[in-house]
């Protein structure tokens, strides 16, 4: 049984948002966080696995196509099947799609260019462990940075996703309107993030870790991390009601990304 809540950030060769995600979880959200090396087969008892952004394994062929064969992914599969929380951000989302943990596929952005910019997304379903700290239809400002974020699913699959409320985030404008312009990458139904049927695996293209501190222009990304924390806290609390305050790790003043780990 877990003493405290623990997050694991998977490091694939080519991951490049691993440090960023780690930083936000540990130093901003103040949660115990560990790196999980892709060649390992041990999830170190984490409560939530995060697949970070980047270009895992070079992203040759298709984004995320190779990373899913890494040894750690077999463990992530089992973990997810057992109800563990898995969050894929950007490339992490692409990996989850390729691994079949989430439905659909990614196509090249409709303008055939890499797009890095702040976008707005709205919470379409706030009943998931990843969005419950937000309100339904709440508009969040979170950046994207990807080449292949044009979400696609065949018509039946898409209908199913809608029916089962698996679409958690959609691209919108500042006022929450689903305008054509706001859907910068061309995703079907403006899809920016989807959850699996069981509700414990979420993939999203926008980078909440890039929008979790005011100084970076937006702290809206915290909604996602806070949702997970609240969800896990409740789960743990109900298990050990009187365990008291959850212990927090000490925050190191120096950034973790100097030198190496």
């Amino acid at each position, binding site marked *: 049984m877990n003493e405290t809540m623990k997050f694991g950030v998977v490091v694939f*060769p080519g991951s*490049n948002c691993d440090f960023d995600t780690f930083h936000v979880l540990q130093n901003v959200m103040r949660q115990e966080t560990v790196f999980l090396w892709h060649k390992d087969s041990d999830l170190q008892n984490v409560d939530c696995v995060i697949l970070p952004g*980047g*270009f895992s394994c070079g992203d040759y062929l298709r984004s995320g196509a190779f990373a899913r064969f890494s040894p750690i992914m077999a463990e992530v599969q089992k973990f997810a099947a057992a109800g563990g929380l898995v969050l894929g951000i950007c490339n992490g989302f692409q990996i989850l799609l390729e691994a079949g943990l989430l439905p659909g596929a990614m196509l090249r952005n409709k303008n055939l260019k*890499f*797009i*890095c910019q702040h976008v707005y997304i709205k919470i379409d379903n706030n009943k998931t462990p990843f969005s419950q700290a937000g309100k339904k239809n709440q508009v969040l400002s979170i950046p994207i940075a990807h080449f292949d974020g044009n979400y696609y699913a065949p018509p039946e699959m898409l209908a199913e996703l809608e029916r089962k409320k698996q679409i958690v985030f959609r691209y919108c404008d500042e006022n929450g309107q689903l305008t054509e312009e706001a859907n910068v990458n061309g995703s079907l139904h403006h899809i920016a993030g989807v959850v699996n049927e069981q509700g414990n695996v979420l993939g999203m293209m926008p980078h909440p870790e890039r929008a979790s501190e005011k100084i970076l222009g937006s702290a809206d990304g915290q909604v996602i991390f806070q949702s997970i924390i609240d969800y896990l806290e409740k789960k743990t609390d109900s298990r050990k009601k009187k365990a008291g305050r959850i212990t927090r790790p000490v925050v190191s003043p120096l950034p973790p990304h100097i030198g190496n780990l």
Partner: protein
Amino acid sequence: MIDDGTLANHTLTRDEYDLIVKLMNREPNLTELGIFSVMWSEHCGYKSSKVYLKKFPTKGKYLIQGPGENAGVLDIGDGLAVVFKIESHNHPSYIEPYQGAATGVGGILRDIFTMGARPIAVLDSLRFGPLNNLKNRSVAEGVVSGISGYGNSIGVPTVGGEVYFHDCYSQNPLVNACCVGLAKKDRLFFARAEGVGNAVIYVGAKTGRDGIHGATMASAEFSKEAEQKRPNVQAGDPFKEKLLLEACLEAMAKDLVIGIQDMGAAGLTCSTTEMAAKAGTGMEINLDLVPQREDGMNPYEIMLSESQERMLIVTGQDKVKPLQEVFNKWDLEAVVIGKVTDDGQLKAYFHDELVIDIPVKAVVDLCPVYRRPVEVPDFMRKLAKFKLPEMPADLDLNQVFLQLIASPDIADKQWIFRQYDHMVQINTIVLPGADAAVLRLKGLKKGLAITLDGNSRYAYLNPKRGGEIAVAEACRNLACVGATPMGVTNCLNFGNPEKPEIMWQFKEAVEGIARACRQFDIPVTGGNVSLYNETEGQAIMPTPVLGIVGLVDDVATIPSAGFVGQRETIILLGENKEELGGSEYLSLVFDEEKGRAPELDFTLEKSVQEVCRQAIKQKLVRTAHDLSEGGLAVALAECSIKSKKGIGFEVKLNDQIRTDALLFGESQSRIILVAKEKNVGKILALARKMKVKARVIGKTGGKKMIIWHKRKKVIEQPVELVRDVWENSIPGYFKV
């Protein structure tokens, strides 16, 4: 023996060859000749530029490492050091825009992490031919996607840069990439092969036949036969580089590295000879052990290949195994290919035969240095005689204003930087599009500001002034985010130095830069020289590009580049003069690139910057923006466009100069500050104290941009419209 043809192919003169024979005490074989050829090329040997580069100041308060290493290093306190350098990749980017630009980024990244720093930012300075031409568009498109393709995947944000368009770059586009890294001050690494008997280890990608003689190619003019040089182009693999980066930093953190050098231009040749020369040692290597991608490579090819994503490491024999373990963890090869010796020679064996035996000192340090003839170009006389055309009575200033806003030199560059991941590593707090990029340092109050600057039109009209202004403007950009300049890197892009006029431009520009750096009391810590930017005898305009790094004491004080609130007061620091020479306006409206480059008074410039910096530190400033291309009208418009809510302005001026010069003139040493009413007095007092002319010129607010001159409304445009023109100009060219 070696004939003239062979020498010409190696861009060596007969005299240089004789010197080689003298230094070696014998005739070199072909491989050895190849080695001298690349190392004594303009690109590696700096034979035309060295005498002038000596004029740069290289000492300063923050300096840890000046020119001579892979990159410059500055001390920013808290045990941290900033490592930075700029590099050109002009020729390869014309031949193969995508790979040329991509490998340019790859190369400059290696220069940074070879010193033990983690790259935290890339900036790019680009020059293309006009976008109304298909070929120019495809070069621009290829270069931008090359930079984005490499930088994005490796996870280093491209946070800023600059781009200009001019016909002189149609056949000679410029691609300069600058990288900034962060290191622990006491854990820097240098390119030295210390310790006789230590192992020499090759790490990274395998060697192929790519890019052989890339350095020599970068040292020659283009001709119609440029096509034939095409096989010289290297292809990059950013994923490999990412692994190499992580593996190198991990090996360094574990203390497994004594000396390290990237293999950039001239590959194995450069890294082996330089590392030995710098340490006063020698090196013995076995070429059969060099990992090879292609079959049947000969010593010449192995030594001169410019395959990407490779490094050379020297370490103790006892550290070899743990070092290999680190590299293997990252799926990379680390192969011992030789050892450090004490005889000052580079000895290489191939199939058990000694094929190279040359004194490293001769290769690295004894490249002939030329003081080439200089001569003021004829056209300078014509340029100077130029008289400003009368301002046509029927000139529609509103139209001119929009025309300037739409000029690709001034218009929105988002089409470019949206393709760059500029946020990864989550440090970028001032995004591309502002005067300077600002990075926070996690856990600290302070931050780093970085900018690239160059205006080739000024440098063409007056190379010395052009050099000075480039430095001044870069510093001014830093001042606008409240930063104090700490150190300089520079990339000098010029034509063929064998032409006395070009050499004159070069000499003047360097003197200008040197003088300005002294004035601002900032050292030059390194840079790069790119000569022979000519095609069929047509040289580019002289294009010195300055990269300056500054320190922001408190990132919480940084003002916005756009207007923030309604009814705030607009203050102008500095003076409006009747200067139109070399302006964007003159070029766009009158098709003239003549006249005098703007004047520059260092005392005034420094004071203006100090007022700006002080006002920001005291949290008095809401918006700050410096005046550059397009002058006052364009600067004000930019503040308006960049305000989130499209806030307009109304400005009233009474200067006794012609209206077009007032609106669009590019006089130096001017900054717009915007403040809340209650702080205006304090800013004006600050300015008075430093003898800077400062005045309130108007207010923010409304939905229109309005400028009055002598009671006449000379500009009136809706913000929406101007923004639309500004945003759609560059993308408009690329819509098929």
